[in-house]
């Protein structure tokens, strides 16, 4: 007589086997979590090529005291260049050479630059994307704005049809070059194919991205965020003035 027995595995052994399997998977994941935890807050390779606004948005997702903070930014242009901020409401008051504005991390701000030497008819619309902020002592924010320089060379290249991207970063003081900052901000050229954001990550902490090349105030129909016009060094606290807007 043949005895038919159900094909079952001992319940306790099965539970234990399942538990050990999941435990092994968990133990394999723990080192990867620690690696993830130790990763420096840098940008991904290739991030410099993604559309404006995306890098700042990614930075916001990484957390930190960024939301709600207005970072003073000073745009500096060579003599003869007239700058004004661009927004959906129009243009701000034109400024000669220097312009102090407040920006928020993650937004893209548009500006208008006219008066490029040898190209008087060209209107350039550089954009600035803030990807991080500074942490000055309280009350000193206006003394130390993020300097963004629009050099004559950059403007000339843009007027000739090129797209210039500048990633402005805070130098790491331990690896900073022992040279004096004489003629404006120090900068170096990224080779063709290099990601400027990745290079800036290696040299310090990227703060802002300047793009010069657009000839339209609203490229692709999009609108730039409107920067806050800041008073320079009037009080400890930045005095926020409404942007004087006029229709284009």
């Amino acid at each position, binding site marked *: 007589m043949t005895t038919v027995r159900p094909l079952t595995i001992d319940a306790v052994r099965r539970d234990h086997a399942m538990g050990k399997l999941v435990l092994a998977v968990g133990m394999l994941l723990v080192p990867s979590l620690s690696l993830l935890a130790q990763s420096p807050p840098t940008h991904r390779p290739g991030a410099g090529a993604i*559309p404006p606004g995306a890098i700042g948005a990614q930075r916001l997702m990484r957390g930190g005291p960024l939301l709600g903070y207005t970072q003073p930014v000073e745009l500096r242009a060579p003599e003869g260049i007239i700058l004004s901020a661009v927004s959906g409401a129009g243009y701000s008051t034109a400024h000669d050479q220097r312009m102090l504005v407040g920006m928020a991390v993650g937004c893209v701000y548009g500006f208008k630059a006219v008066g490029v030497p040898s190209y008087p008819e060209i209107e350039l619309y550089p954009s600035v994307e803030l990807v991080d902020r500074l942490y000055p002592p309280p*009350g000193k924010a206006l003394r130390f704005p993020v300097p963004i320089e629009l050099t004559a060379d950059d403007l000339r290249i843009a007027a000739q049809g090129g797209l210039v991207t500048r990633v402005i970063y805070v130098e790491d003081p331990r690896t*900073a070059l022992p040279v004096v900052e004489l003629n404006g901000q120090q900068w170096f050229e990224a080779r063709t194919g290099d990601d400027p954001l990745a290079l800036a990550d290696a040299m310090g902490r990227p703060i802002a991205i300047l793009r010069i090349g657009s000839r339209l105030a609203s490229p692709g129909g999009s609108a730039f965020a409107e920067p806050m016009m800041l008073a320079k060094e009037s009080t400890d606290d930045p005095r926020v003035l409404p942007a004087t807007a006029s229709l284009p």
Partner: protein
Amino acid sequence: MAESHASPTWLLMPRWFRRGLMIATLLTMCSCSASGQSLAWPACQSCPAEQTDQCDKHCVCECPPGWPVGPSDEYLCDGGDNASPVGATHDNQIVGLEQEDTVGIYRTDDGRTLVAPSTRTCIYAPRFAAVRHVVQPMGAQQRMFVDEVGDAFAAAESELRLLPGTGVLNTTLRQQRGERPPSLFRGRQQAGAAERLLAVAETRGLVGPYANLQIVHLGVMNGQENPIVMRHSLAAITWTGDQEVQVTISGQGASAVFAAKQPGLIYELGVPSSPRLRLVKLASENEAHPGDEVEFTLRFDNVGDAPIRDLVIVDNLTTRLEYVEDSAKASVDADFTTTRNEAGSLVLSWALKESLKPREGGVLTFRVRVR
């Protein structure tokens, strides 16, 4: 038995495993390397760099209240003994002296060579640089006349279309003065501390207005000067909080002393014939732009009860600080020399010609230009 296995609870893990999983999860969440904490910006990078060791050990750094948390790359620091400790060989060769280190090296009566780091001074002086990348969309066919080709392309398109509203910067309390009673430090002075051999007149004209303090002139810590010393000692960073005690330390393991909240640590001089050097470093400015000049004042004191011999005070400047020629002054007779370090900045060195008796001290000043 078969019915119990067919129930939905069978899909769950065994009880012993579930408990283990919960414990492991709790331990992970409470540990310093929890991914949730580290994925965000590290918790205490805006603290001075000397607290890095504490961050590694204790995971939490004591940032001043209300201080925004951020990285410390915007500060220029000088002083202390960072990373590898400074030492001296038998033939008086200094080893382990790195950028930003400021130490005093001296010899005791019984032939020992000791190293004492100074306090650490930080200045808010961020410097910016840029990486440029140029793309020519037209390649070799460079346009000569932009308007003729209907130049209406957009180099890039904005993704974010938010119009931010108005707002103001978050403002915080600037500092807390008089947090500690003025008598706190006075009560901990060693006997005879007031009998300084260094007269005020000796340092008149040597120190700047920012360093016109009793701690500089006489080496006596006055509680009423705490806020001023705090401001200039740990310039932009440690105005507030419990960190004013670091101006009273004698350099014996800088990080350990910085962590202590009891200002009396330095005065535990139970061992007889033990010379101890105290170095207090002050900066004239809290913040600086490239090109600005900053003056540093180093006050050194023998706070032990034995003379200090062959005292050498060394300051290895960071690369962004450039020594202003002929600006070094000293209230005592000392040989001042400068040597260039491997990073391109200078190492300033004062070798005192005479031994420093107990309760004696002096002042060194020099100016640097922020690059």
